[in-house]
């Protein structure tokens, strides 16, 4: 398994667990979506995996290595990328500087860094057009896409994506979903995504988890979801 989360509990305040024993698996080369109502702990789960939040109990393994409670920067070096829900960019730096910062984890491998930069400009030519502009001046959608592109620069095996389309217009959202899909299908990467947009989130997935109040409720392949649960999805939210 690429990533395996077993019985993880976590929270922001003492004794208040947002996650009360969640188990999730991200299968290699698949896009796994986690859905669930607001506040069930979807984003908390990603923050716990990426090391921004210390789990109270449970175990997280990545390629059979225990990564529970490891510092974020080590996970980045190990090939995991994280696309936060906030626009996590350096807004007062130029786009070009942001692109450069994305090679931080492997900056000493000049060749790799250089080719990563070339590649990202190839994949996303608009970044080159805006290279001299301050990142904070780009539109919300552009910042979102850029965040994804920057995360890809380290050539990660596993990408954690938090609410990729929140606050975006449908056309932009479609571009992003298409992009995520091709990362899995054409490039063989693994994605674990959390989405508030239930229908689109399931549409794009290979495998789906439903959380309820910090615990697992249901899971299954997309085919199973389409066949059995499509019409009852609404029920889980209410």
């Amino acid at each position, binding site marked *: 398994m690429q990533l395996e989360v077993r019985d993880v509990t976590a929270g922001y305040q003492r004794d208040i667990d947002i996650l009360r024993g969640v188990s999730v698996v991200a299968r290699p080369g698949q896009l796994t979506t986690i859905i669930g109502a607001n506040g069930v702990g979807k984003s908390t789960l990603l923050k716990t995996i*990426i090391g*921004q939040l210390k789990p109270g109990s449970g175990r997280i393994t990545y390629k059979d290595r225990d990564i529970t409670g490891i510092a*974020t*920067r080590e996970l*980045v*070096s190990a090939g995991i990328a*994280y696309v*936060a829900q*906030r626009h*996590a*960019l*350096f*807004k*007062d*730096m130029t786009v070009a*500087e942001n692109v*450069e*910062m*994305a090679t*931080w*984890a492997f*900056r000493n491998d000049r060749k790799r860094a250089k080719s990563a930069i070339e590649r990202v400009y190839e994949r996303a030519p608009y970044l080159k057009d805006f290279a001299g502009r301050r990142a904070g001046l780009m539109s919300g959608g552009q910042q979102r896409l850029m965040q994804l592109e*920057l995360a890809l620069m*380290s050539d990660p095996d596993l990408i954690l994506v938090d609410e990729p389309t929140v606050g975006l217009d449908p056309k932009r959202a479609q571009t992003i979903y298409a992009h995520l899909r091709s990362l899995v299908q054409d490039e063989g990467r693994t994605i674990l995504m959390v989405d508030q947009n239930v229908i689109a989130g399931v549409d794009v997935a290979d495998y789906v988890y439903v959380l309820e109040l910090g615990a697992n409720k249901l899971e299954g392949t997309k085919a199973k979801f389409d066949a059995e649960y499509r019409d009852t999805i609404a029920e889980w939210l209410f």
Partner: protein
Amino acid sequence: MTLVAIAEQAANGLIISTFYALIALGIALIFGVLKIVNFAHGEFYMLGGYSCYLAVTLLGLPPIFGVVFAVVILMAVGVLVEQTLIKPIHTGKVDRPDEYAIMITFALAIMLLNLANSVFGPWPQSPAPVSRGIVEFGELIIPGDRLSAAGIGILLIVGLLLILRYTWAGKAVRAVSQDRAAAETFGINISRVSMLSFGAGAALAGAAGALIGPVFNVVPAMGAVPAIKAYIVVVLGGLGSIPGAIVGALILGQVEVFATILIPDTNRALAYKDAYGLVVLILVLLVRPQGLFGKPERRA
């Protein structure tokens, strides 16, 4: 007032601004990354003055190496202080971090001041300046020691700006100042950057002390006034803003020299010189706490 007198005052203001900027940049750098105001900054500046004095007078190094020596020593002091006293704030080892940060740096200031009093005595020392004599620009006469000190100061500021702009370390510092969480997901080692910027901030104060020491003498209490000036500068420019600190220093330098001229009674005018900036400080904090260049913090 004659044109020459005005030019002379403006030039004096510019020279003073350089030193203010040098000290203020250190405070801004530290605040940007660690989000704390270092109340011991004036004492780092004072230690810079003494380091230079020791290097020049006791070790017999040329004055310019005195400055280098001060930078190295203060960098080390800064790193040591960060590791022992500041780091616990960010690793959750302190109960009330805001209160702690203020009081610990204030207590550190008192400790360093009295330490200097004990080791060096309260007497003023004057290490040799980098250069002596006077420089004439037409009718404008400027003492060479000030001009050379300001010149080196400007070089240091430009050097710092270049480092921040073009080196990995500098970029990491800017990245962490802008967005700590994002910097972490890019793989930056926050605690190393914190250590580095505290050290660099202390080194800048040390450089300023080493440069100005020969001009105004080195005494244990020398840090108090410049530190307060630097606080005014950083608040004026917006706490944590690097360009803000430079512009703030330019403004304060000019305000001080020209406001002094406005009061006819010269004794009084000189006595109140240090108060103008403080009034500015209070006004800015009350009306626009984010300063001229800072962005307002949005609640919610």
